[in-house]
């Protein structure tokens, strides 16, 4: 805030107040301490690291020539399965995340207890990695694409629900109050008040998560939850590096294609 005009004597100026400086300094100190402690205790075998470029080159050499003939036999079906896992998982996640997100949004559901409960659900979903979710569902349903789909879905609920709830909370209260004022029922406040406002954000969130899920579903096979990761795992375990290469190329192509698709769709929808 403006203070009285300064005197002619030399005036000092600092970008931050002492309290701000202290807080920043504390963060810097904490970062340095964390890095130093981590670097000091993490297991570090220098020979391995010096060797790394050599080993990397060796790996690449062993991948050549890429075994493209393997694609129709062992990769294509797995790739399609990966896309199915990602898409079904996203759909399921959206179906579950929308109600939870509505419960978490403080303006839609003005009941603090329900908000916290919903937030707890969302946080737990996000805190568990999709690989862990996959392990859990494999324990229940056995290995395969079902476990993978559920893993993707349960990991995505937290992500979609959190962002969806935030979008709802940013909704302009004007139209909603107007609807409430004329005694509109709860359901039509949702469909006529909130939905038009959160629709662009909703589609953006769904597309973003689908894009992420395409990448994630490619690794689920490493623990046996279906998709192209299974093909990758098999090839690696058998040291068939030419096949590893074709799997990696397939993943790369699908990821790029998904990103292009999402970019195009986002332009259309939003």
């Amino acid at each position, binding site marked *: 805030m403006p203070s009285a005009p300064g005197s002619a004597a030399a005036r000092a100026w600092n970008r931050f107040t002492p309290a701000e400086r202290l807080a920043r300094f504390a963060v810097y100190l904490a970062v340095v301490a964390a890095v130093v402690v*981590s670097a000091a*205790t993490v297991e*570090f075998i220098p020979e*391995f690291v010096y060797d790394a470029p050599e080993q990397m080159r060796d790996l690449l050499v062993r991948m050549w020539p890429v075994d493209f003939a393997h694609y129709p036999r062992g990769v294509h079906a797995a790739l399609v399965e990966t896309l199915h896992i990602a898409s079904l998982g996203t759909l399921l996640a959206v179906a579950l995340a929308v109600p939870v997100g509505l419960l978490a949004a403080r303006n839609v559901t003005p009941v603090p207890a329900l908000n916290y409960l919903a937030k707890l659900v969302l946080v737990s979903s996000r*805190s568990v*990695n999709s690989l862990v979710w996959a392990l859990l569902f494999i324990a229940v349903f056995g290995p395969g694409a079902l476990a993978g789909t559920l893993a993707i879905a349960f990991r995505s609920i937290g992500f979609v629900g959190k962002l969806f709830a935030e979008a709802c909370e940013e909704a302009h209260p004007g139209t909603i109050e107007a609807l409430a004022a004329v005694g509109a029922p709860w359901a039509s406040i949702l469909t006529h008040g909130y939905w038009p406002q959160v629709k662009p954000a909703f589609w953006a969130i769904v597309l973003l998560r689908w894009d992420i899920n395409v990448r994630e579903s490619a690794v689920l096979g490493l623990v046996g939850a279906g998709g192209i990761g299974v093909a990758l795992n098999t090839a690696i375990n058998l040291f068939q590096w030419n096949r590893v290469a074709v799997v990696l190329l397939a993943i790369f192509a699908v990821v790029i294609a998904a990103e292009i698709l999402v970019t195009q769709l986002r332009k259309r929808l939003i």
Partner: protein
Amino acid sequence: MLPPNFEHWDAILKGLKESLEIAVLASFFGILIALPVGLLAARNLMPAWVSWSARALIAAARAFHPVIVAILFVKAIGFGAIAGIMALVVASVGFIGKLFAEAVEEISLKQLEGVRATGASFAGVIAFGVLPQVLPRFIGFSTYQFDSNVRNSTMVGVVGAGGIGAPLFVAFQRFEYDVVCAIILAIIAVVFLAEVISARVQRIFGA
């Protein structure tokens, strides 16, 4: 599965500690590398050949899930935390680099022009014209990536790249689901803690 079995809590603690170390080091080096790479990738500040090279690097870093990158590093440099750190550094550079480049491309050129017209050097223009406009978002991305690295650092162990992931996977394969449950609860606690810290840091830096 219930109740969780915390009998091996010292092993859990050791694994968690290693995961956190992986996350801290990967975030530190990843952010350090992503800052210049993201700047170089901004098409409004850099000549086309520079920004396209940087963009290619970012795209390559983003192409694969960190766990897949971790497999490759494990194969190349052997089992252990270093492979996990390297995999997460790659992921961090890809994620922060991309978003940071986009943020730099959205800055107001008017503000930049105001600084440039004073005769400031390129570094001066970056320090006073570009960074003030993008730093809050950069800090936002970085803290988000730290969260993300904490999550993923608990997973790279599944493929042998260090951290809590290895004991988790082993417990699974032995059907010791009560141990699995304990480990997962511990992971959730750590991830939650990381989110709280990130939010606090963002507030201090006005992001």
